[in-house]
């Protein structure tokens, strides 16, 4: 690209250096989070495989170590989305918006995993893939579709500031559903079992110690995976925003720039 085109991208030098820092191809922090997540995952899988069989469900109880951690991780991700959305509305920091969106997107992924593994487990234990009368299943599905709407809204607004404000509002409004999903099994008499550990009478856990340790390991692994995926997603959003800015400021498009990435986002 010629020096003339480069000077026409009228960015100030200080923003240039900051971008260069955040867009550097490899970040040691993200990579080490990923490695840690992989190690925790291996440990969790090993502990899940060596856990004893359960009295009634036999082998099938091992689904506990993927279904429950993914549900808790989804709650955490959507909660992080809420906190950062509030933070954005108070401070108007673009970083908070990016983290909020990333956390919610990964939260949607974990909600989907929760629903799918729950359906598989339900097919084995209850005998049905889906049950309309069950408050936990139905409310989780509703939550999932609402946050799909959130992601759709995000895609259809191009102005970053408008998008950030409106999505922050939606992220706050939508989180109201999370406690409803969680407490639905206590409030209503449904098919889904009640909580085993985080229950009103905390001292009386209804789970053998032999299951608690693998569950904890799996939960730690899922939270590490969540942190890694959110970090990667934030970095991707930054990079794509930079590509968009470069594409819009350095017209006509040079050979190295390629088509505007707004089409593919």
């Amino acid at each position, binding site marked *: 690209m010629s020096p003339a085109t480069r000077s026409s991208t009228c960015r100030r030098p200080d923003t240039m250096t900051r971008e260069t820092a955040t867009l550097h191809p490899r970040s040691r922090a993200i990579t080490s989070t990923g490695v840690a997540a992989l190690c925790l995952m291996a440990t969790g899988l090993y502990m899940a495989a060596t856990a004893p069989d359960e009295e009634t469900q036999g082998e099938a109880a091992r689904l506990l170590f993927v279904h429950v951690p993914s549900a808790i991780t989804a709650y955490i991700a959507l909660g992080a989305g809420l906190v950062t959305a509030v933070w954005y*509305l108070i401070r108007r920091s673009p970083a908070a918006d990016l983290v909020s969106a990333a956390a919610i997107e990964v939260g949607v992924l974990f909600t989907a995993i929760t629903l799918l593994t729950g359906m598989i487990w339900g097919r084995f234990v209850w005998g049905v893939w889906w049950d309309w009368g069950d408050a936990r299943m139905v*409310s989780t599905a*509703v*939550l999932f*579709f*609402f946050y*799909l*709407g*959130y992601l*759709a*809204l995000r895609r*259809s*607004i191009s102005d970053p*500031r*408008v998008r950030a*404000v*409106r999505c*922050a*509002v*939606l992220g*706050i*409004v*939508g989180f*109201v*559903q999370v406690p*409803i999903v969680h407490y639905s099994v206590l409030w209503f008499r449904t098919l889904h079992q009640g909580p085993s550990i985080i229950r009103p009478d905390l001292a009386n856990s209804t789970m053998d110690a032999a299951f608690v340790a693998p569950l904890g390991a799996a939960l730690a692994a899922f939270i590490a995976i969540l942190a890694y995926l959110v970090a990667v997603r934030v970095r991707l959003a930054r990079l794509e925003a930079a590509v968009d800015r470069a594409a819009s400021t350095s017209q006509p498009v040079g050979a190295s720039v390629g088509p505007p990435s707004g089409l593919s986002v």
Partner: protein
Amino acid sequence: MTPSAFWQQVRWVFTKDLRVEVRGGVTLRMATPFAALALLLAPLATGTDTALLRRIGPGMLWLVVILFGMTVTLRSGAREPGPVRDLLTLSGLDPAAGFLGRSLASAVLLFGVTLVLTPLMIVLYAPEGRPGWGWLALLAVAGVMALGLLGSLVATLVTGLRERTALGPLLAIPLAVPVLLATARGTDSAISQQGSLSWLLLLVAMNLALVIVGVLLAGPMDETTR
């Protein structure tokens, strides 16, 4: 701003929206007949099993009110277009007052839709039992209020987007599920002469939560539609 001035503004927006509806009339002339048509067609889809129709009548009524009413609410609850909006902003309209006024107007329109459709549902589906009319009225009022608040909240979020006709319902209808449950199941228990207090309280809680969220976030939401 003093409380009385705030409520005065709410009243202004409310009467303005209703006047627009009286003169334009999208709700009564288009949405209501469409919803009535849906009530008429649903038995064709389920088959004419009279016992089944008796049981699903109240649920169908509220499903239709939510699906078709929500499109009305998303239209009328949207923030005003161009010149009107600028005028309201210039005259110092509190965004929260605007939000509440629009929501109330939408709720009144939805109540109208429900009033028209209820006798139709009773005639077509013949639900058994004699309903407790007091409970039904309370449930309907709380239900349409919640739908109105939800509609104008979501309408503001999709203002000016090309995809708003598809996106609005996708965002609003999952959040309207408690309204569907509470009104349909509550109508069931009102018809079978059991009280519907818990369903009514659920709707009241939802209304209050929406009022709080809407009033708190009306400022930021309005700034993006200017």
